[in-house]
């Protein structure tokens, strides 16, 4: 028998995690995405003289006001390991409730009613997921269809004009319209909520390990329920913003909004399986998509191609991240 010998002495191995945990622990690098965003800005600045201007940046932010508001709520839900597909329908539903009631009861009453309509969607989703125990994907796929159908049916498929509700056009400071200020406040608010409150910490904990969260005494179901309510509140905000920005609402308002929001959140590094992510990442994700859309428009590229570009971008960004992770492991 030959002897086993150590041929070299070296530094003791660190408390090394096994490679599998390493793979699982890797967090998509937001910094890489910021670099990508910078490249986007650079390319578009060079290809269009109008791109790099204050007014155009304001345009970009105005364009993401609605998506950004629902993406804020989606960030909380995805981190907690849940998902809400009903936000697009919810936005249309909120717009409809507002547009139908505002002429009779006035703006002052129609706004809270519209907020209640959004909260109602969130409440329904939250109850079905946390009390009945249906998977969030299935639940919100159902409510997506229900509220889209309700909106089209009650609104008779027509576009309904909204008048006397043009707050979204007000530009209080530096030519920045109110919806931009609103979406920034919402995103900062959700960011602080996630980073600096017990609620936010619990959301991460629940997404990272629901059993462990329950065993350290966190009210997991209540917290998830509240996350759906917040998503409902975001729908209400987005619905009112959309109605004011467009001056109308219809059965097709907000179609595909849920996917746009989730795209931005995932681009920003939030994990679909929960426990990982941040609002900062979501903001970068939102900007990457919005800058791409804006830049392509300035280059007079048809908007349907923007969808192709956004989809390709999502897959490329996530694939790139995977590849980089695999390279780092070698």
């Amino acid at each position: 028998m030959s002897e086993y010998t150590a041929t070299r002495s070296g530094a003791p191995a660190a408390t090394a995690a096994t490679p599998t945990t390493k793979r699982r622990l890797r967090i998509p690098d937001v910094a890489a995405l910021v670099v990508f965003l910078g490249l986007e800005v650079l390319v578009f600045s060079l290809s269009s003289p109008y791109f790099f201007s204050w007014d155009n940046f304001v345009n970009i932010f105005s364009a993401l006001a609605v998506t950004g508001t629902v993406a804020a709520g989606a960030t909380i839900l995805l981190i907690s390991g849940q998902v809400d597909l009903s936000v697009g329908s919810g936005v249309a539903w909120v717009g409809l409730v507002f547009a139908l009631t505002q002429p009779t009861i006035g703006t002052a009453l129609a706004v809270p009613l519209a907020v209640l309509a959004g909260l109602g969607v969130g409440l329904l989703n939250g109850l079905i997921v946390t009390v009945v125990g249906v998977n969030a994907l299935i639940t919100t796929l159902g409510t997506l269809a229900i509220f889209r159908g309700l909106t089209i049916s009650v609104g008779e498929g027509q576009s309904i004009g909204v008048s006397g509700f043009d707050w979204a056009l007000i530009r209080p400071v530096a030519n920045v319209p109110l919806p931009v200020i609103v979406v920034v406040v919402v995103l900062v608010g959700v960011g602080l909520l996630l980073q600096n409150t017990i609620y936010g910490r619990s959301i991460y904990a629940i997404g990272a390990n629901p059993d462990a969260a329950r065993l350290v005494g966190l009210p997991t179901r209540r917290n998830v329920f509240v996350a759906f309510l917040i998503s409902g509140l975001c729908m209400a905000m987005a619905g009112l913003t959309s109605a004011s920005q467009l001056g109308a609402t219809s059965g097709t308002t907000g179609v595909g909004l849920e996917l746009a929001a989730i795209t931005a959140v995932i681009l920003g590094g939030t994990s679909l399986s929960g426990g990982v992510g941040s609002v900062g990442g979501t903001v970068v994700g939102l900007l990457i998509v919005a800058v791409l859309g804006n830049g392509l428009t300035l280059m007079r590229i048809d908007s349907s191609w923007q969808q192709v570009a956004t989809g390709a971008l999502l897959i490329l960004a996530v694939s790139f991240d995977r590849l980089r992770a695999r390279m780092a492991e070698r």
Partner: protein
Amino acid sequence: MTNDTFLRARGLRKSFGQVEVLHGVDLDLAPGTVTALLGENGAGKSTLVRIIAGDHHCDGGEIAIDGTVVDSYSVAQARRRGIRLISQEISDAPTLSVAENVVLGAWPQRGMRVDRSAMRREASEALQALGTELDLDARQDSLRLGERQIVEVARALRGESRLVIFDEPTASLSDAEAKRLYGVIESLTTRGVAVLYITHRLDEVFAIADRVCVLRDGKVALVTDVARTSAAEVVASMVGHSVERTRGAQRSLADAPVVLELTDASAPGFGGVNLAARRGEILGLYGKVGSGVAEVAEALFAIRHLEAGSLALDGTPARLRDPQDAIGHGIGFLPPDRARQAAFVLRSVAENLAAPSWRRLARWRGWITRAVETNAYRRWHDELHVRSTGDATQLLGTLSGGNQQKVLLGRWLEAGSRILVLSEPTRGVDVGAREEIYAVLRELAAQGTTLVVASSDYEDIVAVADTAIVMVRGRVAATIPHHDITVSALTEAAGGAIHV
């Protein structure tokens, strides 16, 4: 020499990023011999095994199979050479049948179709070769853990195997199931198969292994015939120094008030259990897997609800609704399955430690900052001898098992729990960290914390318990006072010798 070696590894090196985890490891595996591979967590066992199984490629060194040096190979190529890895985690398809799970990935075919009768025949033969009969049509997830592991082994052994690697196979098995596995290993070696057996348990080494190889910090620390070594030598080479089994001194607890009491308690998994723990006492609950000790521990933390009997805290009857309620009563709980039930591996160590205390740590209302969590972490980091980078934002999952366990223990110290229920506190914890955890538990008890240590590992009980309660099939079989707590007393009361 070459003739009696199936696999010969020389100078294997492997780095992950900047960290070299194997610094030139030699290993010889001979047909018909069982080589036990030991080492603390992070010593490099998993990496070594993955290289042999083709899952990783080494950065330096060479591997010869049957005397021929082979270049880096894939898992599939390793399989073709007869190398089989049975990993710790079960990787079956729970919703498929037992027969399908045995042949998973290599279905017998007739043309394009799966030949179902051949599948059943092959599955049945494979299981019989392991001395097992299972209902081939049962769904995999209807089996018990041990049975699922047997299916896993049956699948791995299909085709001609020359080297079988077991990665801590008995960690979650009952004694009977473990014994059955030892039988399987014996039948493998008589057929001339080389076996590499990773374990944490010394009794297994001396029961089934011919050779023992100890890794420490990515190097071979000891390699010898089992017959020529001792448990003390093996342990010393694992930790780098000798370890004495220290037993807590007998303390007088008769005057201390009873803090925790179960009277005629029954719940799914146990019945008619009476137990009482005084202030500052460490009550050991010993029993094999399925004996009910884990279930009693769960009931004390309201994960499991009592169907009959009662629980009293400080002499007052208490009904605990849920874990949150239990925490409110000053109870802390360390669950047996760290990864699934306790650890937030993707979150920072500080957050993991502070989680149950967030409400108390919050500045006002629900407002919490990283700083208060960091302070909480600093408070316990040194006290618990957590080996880490010292950075409070380090992810928990980057610590070794033993150090994760210390952070999770710190969780309840920070929460100020006066009763701590620990279920399998040293599972997946290496020898050195084990001793440190025992020391912490004794210290806590000395300071007046009441501890209930529920374990299927007699070492835990012998090391710390003031009183031991032994359970068999959901009932209390014996209550052993401090001076009588020995390995043999425990195993005897649990109904059998140490499984060998």
